[in-house]
C-alpha cells in the first residue's frame, strides 16, 4: 500500500476511526489522550461532577442558613438539614441525634415515617427512637468524632443492632456534629442506591459545620427568648407589686390628708371658741358681776349713815375696800380677756400697754421696739399677734426666769413680724412633753392668718418666738367671722 496515495478503503477506515474517537470524546467516555511524548489524563467529567457537587453543597448550606433565619423551632431546622443531607447523598432516609445529659443519644429529627413502627424488645412502641445508649456504629462515630461509611453493615463488627420493625439498612454514612472540641451529636443518612462513595462522605462532612451553626443559633435564640420572657414576667410582677404598694400609699396619704384637715379644722375651731369664750366671760364679768358689784357698793354707801355700834366703822371700811378692789379686779380681768386697747389704740398701743402691765408684776425689764407699724392692720392679724405676744410674755414670767426681754414688731414690705426674745433658762423644743399647750395655739393663730410661727430655744440660752404674717393675704377666717 502506498502511504502517499492511500486507497479509498483505507481512508474510509481512518475516517471511521477518527469519528469513533471524536464520539468517545464528545460523550465524555475518554480518560486519557495518548501522545508521542506523554499521556494526558482527561478528568473533565470528574471536575464537572465535583463542581456540581460543590454547588449542591453550597446551595444546601444556603438553604439551611435561610431556614435558620425564618424557622421557629429546632425541629424545623433539623428537618431542613436532614432534607439537604439526603438530597446531597441520594439517601432514602436519615436522622440527626444529640447526646443528652445521661450520655445517651436522643433524636432531634428523623426522616423515615416507617421508623415509627419500630418496637422495643418488650413489644412496646419505640418512643420515636428516643434516647438510646451509645455503642456500635453510632458510639464509634460519637466517641471518635470521625465520620463513618458502611456499605455492608453485616460485615461491621457488632453490626447495627436495629430495633424490631426497623426498615433494613443496606448502607450508612454518619458524620459527627462538632462544636469546638466537643462532639454533641451526629448526622446520619442511610440506603444510597449502589452504596456510599467517598464523595458522599466529603459532601456530608462539608455540610456538618453548617448544621451545627444553624442548630446552635436556633437554640441560642430560643434560650434568649426564654430568658426575655422570664425577665418580662418578672418585670410585670414587680410592676404589679409596685402599683399595689403605690395604691396602698395613695390610700394612706388620703387618710393622712383627711386627718390633717380634720385636725386643722379642730384647732381652728378651738382658737375661735377660745376667743368667743373670752369675749363671753369678759362680757359676763363687765356687765353681770361688775354691775352687781357696783350696785352692791352703792347700797353699802347708802348704809354708811345708818350703822351704829362699836367696831362697825372699821369693819364697814374693810368691807367697802374689799368691794372696790373686787370691782377693779373684775374690770382688769374683763379687759385682759377682751383687750379694749387693741380696739382703741391698735396693735402698737395694746402691746405697749401689755409691756407696762407685765413690768408692773415684778417681771423682768422689757424693751419694746417697733418699726413701720403706725398703720392699723386687719383686726384678725392684730388680735392674733397681740395674743401671741401676750402668751409669750406669760410663758417668760412663768418659766424663763429671765432678766431681760425684748419685743419687736417690724414691718418689712407686706409682711409684719413679731419677735419676743428672752435671756432665760430656755428649753429643748424637741421634747414634746415640754412644749406648753399655749405654743400650739400660738402656732394655730399664725397659721389662721396664713403666717408662719416658730420657736428657737436651747437649755440655758433663752428663747426666741417669731411670728411672721403677710398683710396682703385675704384671710379665709376673717371672711368667715
Amino acid at each position, binding site marked *: 500500500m502506498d502511504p502517499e496515495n492511500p486507497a479509498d478503503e483505507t481512508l474510509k477506515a481512518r475516517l471511521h476511526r477518527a469519528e469513533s474517537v471524536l464520539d*468517545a470524546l464528545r*460523550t465524555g467516555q*475518554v480518560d*486519557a489522550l*495518548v*501522545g508521542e511524548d506523554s*499521556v494526558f489524563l482527561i478528568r473533565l467529567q470528574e471536575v464537572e461532577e465535583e463542581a456540581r457537587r460543590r454547588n449542591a453543597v453550597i446551595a444546601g448550606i444556603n438553604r439551611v442558613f435561610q431556614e435558620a433565619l425564618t424557622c421557629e423551632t429546632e425541629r424545623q431546622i433539623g428537618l431542613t438539614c436532614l432534607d439537604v443531607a439526603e438530597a446531597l447523598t441520594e439517601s432514602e432516609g436519615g436522622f440527626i441525634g444529640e447526646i443528652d445529659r445521661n450520655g445517651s443519644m436522643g433524636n432531634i429529627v428523623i426522616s423515615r415515617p416507617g421508623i415509627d413502627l419500630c418496637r422495643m424488645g418488650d413489644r412496646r412502641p419505640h418512643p420515636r427512637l428516643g434516647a438510646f445508649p451509645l455503642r456500635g456504629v453510632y458510639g464509634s462515630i460519637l466517641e471518635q468524632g470521625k465520620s463513618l461509611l458502611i456499605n455492608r453493615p453485616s460485615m461491621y463488627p457488632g453490626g447495627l443492632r436495629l430495633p424490631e420493625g426497623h426498615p433494613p439498612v443496606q448502607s450508612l454514612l454518619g458524620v459527627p456534629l462538632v462544636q469546638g472540641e466537643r462532639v454533641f451529636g451526629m448526622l446520619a443518612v442511610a440506603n444510597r442506591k449502589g452504596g456510599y462513595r467517598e464523595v458522599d462522605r466529603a459532601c456530608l462532612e462539608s455540610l456538618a459545620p453548617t448544621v451545627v451553626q444553624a442548630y446552635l443559633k436556633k437554640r441560642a435564640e430560643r434560650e434568649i427568648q426564654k430568658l426575655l420572657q422570664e425577665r418580662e414576667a418578672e418585670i410585670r410582677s414587680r410592676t404589679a407589686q409596685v402599683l399595689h404598694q403605690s395604691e396602698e400609699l395613695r390610700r394612706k396619704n388620703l387618710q393622712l390628708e383627711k386627718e390633717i384637715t380634720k385636725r386643722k379644722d379642730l384647732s381652728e375651731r378651738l382658737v375661735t371658741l377660745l376667743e368667743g369664750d373670752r369675749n363671753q366671760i369678759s362680757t359676763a364679768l363687765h356687765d353681770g358681776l361688775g354691775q352687781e358689784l357696783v350696785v352692791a357698793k352703792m347700797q353699802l354707801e347708802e348704809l354708811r349713815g345708818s350703822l351704829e355700834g362699836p367696831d362697825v366703822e372699821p369693819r364697814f371700811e374693810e368691807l367697802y375696800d374689799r368691794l372696790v378692789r373686787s370691782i377693779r379686779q373684775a374690770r382688769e380681768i374683763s379687759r385682759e380677756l377682751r383687750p379694749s386697747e387693741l380696739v382703741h389704740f391698735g396693735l402698737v398701743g395694746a402691746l405697749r400697754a401689755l409691756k407696762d402691765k407685765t413690768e408692773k408684776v415684778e417681771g423682768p425689764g422689757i424693751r419694746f421696739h417697733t418699726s413701720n407699724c403706725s398703720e392699723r392692720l386687719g383686726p384678725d392679724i392684730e388680735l392674733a399677734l397681740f395674743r401671741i405676744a401676750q402668751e409669750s410674755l406669760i410663758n417668760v414670767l412663768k418659766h424663763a426666769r429671765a432678766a431681760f426681754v425684748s419685743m419687736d414688731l417690724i414691718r418689712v414690705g407686706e409682711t409684719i413680724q413679731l419677735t419676743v426674745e428672752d435671756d432665760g433658762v430656755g428649753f429643748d423644743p424637741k421634747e414634746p412633753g415640754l412644749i406648753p399647750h399655749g405654743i400650739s395655739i400660738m402656732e394655730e393663730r399664725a397659721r389662721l392668718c396664713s403666717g408662719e410661727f416658730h420657736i428657737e430655744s436651747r437649755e440655758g440660752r433663752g428663747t426666741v418666738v417669731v411670728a411672721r404674717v403677710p398683710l396682703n393675704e385675704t384671710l379665709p377666717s376673717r371672711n368667715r367671722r
Partner: protein
Amino acid sequence: MEGAGTPSSRETVVFQLFVAGDESHSRSAMDNLKAICEVYLPECHEIEVVDVLECSDLALEKKIFVTPALLKLSPAPGATIYGTLSEKEKVVEALGLQREG
C-alpha cells in the same frame, strides 16, 4: 493477561484493551468488557490489558490515541471501539458477536 483459555468448539476471540491506569472510564470499560464476554464468549476469549501510562509505545504503534480503547485482534475481521463500552448492544454488533447456542 486475563482470559479463559479452555478449548471450545468456538474459536477464541482475542482482545487488547488499552486503559489509563485505574482511571474511572478505563475501569468501566474493563468491567463492561468482562460482562459482555461472560455472556457472549464464555471460556473462549482472551483479554490483554495494556496500560498506556506504562506502555504508550504499543498504543501509538496500534494508532490508539485515546483510552479506553478496545481492539479485536482475532479472528478477522478486526475492530476498534473507543469509550467505556457501556452501550453493550452497539459493542456486540461492532464485534460481530452472537449468543452461544
